[in-house]
């Protein structure tokens, strides 16, 4: 999948905004109702709507509860300690933080620190992913469990990993064919 499409999927996640306008009736979207909006009172909306309202200066963004320095530092430490991938607070942490930190920068204190922390977590996870792929491929492939890996992370290794595994399995297939022909030709010559 295209990274832009993964971002598109992430935009369906709900976030909190503080509206700067009033609209007291529910808005019946096809994907569910949103509202009512009262200026200054937080409301939950899908991220795509939050982006649009923010760009039109109609709201302020509220950071998701996990997107703060303490939580992210904890996650980073835990990720460092653990041998496995730890469960991220959001399945779309990378895309969401990218979008939110980008368009909402003026609402967010320490925006650069948060960005660095998320990048650190990403780097930790990707290097963990690379080394586990290495072990997986060297062990001959077949099947692997990848719990808690997020969609964006999967997407970043999809092409290369699937290619490698497909090539490996087709080589094995050919090898089997060769073995079989060797056996039959041997038995014929005997």
């Amino acid at each position, binding site marked *: *999948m295209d990274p832009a*499409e993964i971002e*598109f*999927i992430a*935009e*369906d996640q709900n976030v909190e905004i503080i509206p700067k*306008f009033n*609209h007291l*009736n529910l*808005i*019946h*979207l*096809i*994907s*569910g109702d949103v509202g009512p909006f009262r200026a200054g009172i937080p409301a939950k909306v899908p991220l*795509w*709507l939050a982006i*649009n309202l923010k760009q039109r200066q*109609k709201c302020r963004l509220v950071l998701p509860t996990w997107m703060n320095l303490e939580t992210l530092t904890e996650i980073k430490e835990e990720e460092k300690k653990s041998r496995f991938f730890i469960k991220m607070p959001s399945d779309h942490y990378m895309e969401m933080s990218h979008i939110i930190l980008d368009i909402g920068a003026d609402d967010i204190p320490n925006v650069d620190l948060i960005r660095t922390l998320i990048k650190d977590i990403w780097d930790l996870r990707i290097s963990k992913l690379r080394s586990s792929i290495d072990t997986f491929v060297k062990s*001959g492939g*077949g*099947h*692997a*469990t*990848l*719990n*808690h*890996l997020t*969609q964006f992370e*999967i997407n970043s290794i*999809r092409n290369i*990993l*699937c290619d490698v*595994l*497909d090539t490996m*399995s*087709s080589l*094995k*297939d050919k*090898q*089997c064919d060769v073995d079989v022909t060797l056996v039959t030709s041997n038995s014929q010559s005997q």
Partner: protein
Amino acid sequence: MNVAGNSLFDIIETEPAANEDENCLSVQKVLETIKTAWKNEKLSPEILPNKVEYIDCMLEQIKQMEENIEKLRKDDIRIEIHRMEIERIRFVITSYLRVRIEKIEKFTLDIVQQDFERSSDNMYLSHDELKYAKSYLKSIDNHFDKYLNMLPPNLRTLEENKKLIKPDLNTYVFLRAGKDVANVYIRDMSENKEDEFVLDEGSQHILPYESIAEFVKNNDVQLL
């Protein structure tokens, strides 16, 4: 005016109830189904059973929504919000149909042959897709007929199976199990045997598509 606008949108809200009797589904569920189908279709090597009745239902909803938007005051904040949502849904639907067309053009003969063996209720292609696939097949055949005749006589015949392109079902895919899935068999090529696995609910895996193809089709697993 505003009040009138609201009651119009209330009509939309009650509209899914009528569909609920038919399909036992709310419009949100329909949208979820379409999004899931889109992701699966993009990530699976072969064509999956069509979801045309969901698409039709959603297009109908969009049409009604657009009619209602027309009736709103021009400065209503809802207009842009509804338009944006509709654009997003349209994108998913278009992308979904386009991926299917790509597969149909690539594996035409294989897909048509397989659907030919299915009963008319279980066909993977929708009515329109089948029509398209057949006309596409015909134009390929015409093309071959026309140009093969320009070759020396001994090269003029082309066997049917040489034109047959099949999707590689052995290719690896990522997936998440929506519920506990037992009896997943993975072929071990080197030793020529099959290993049995159980996928726990919510767990994520990478394995050959062939092993879980039927679970993708009945929605037990979701491709990632």
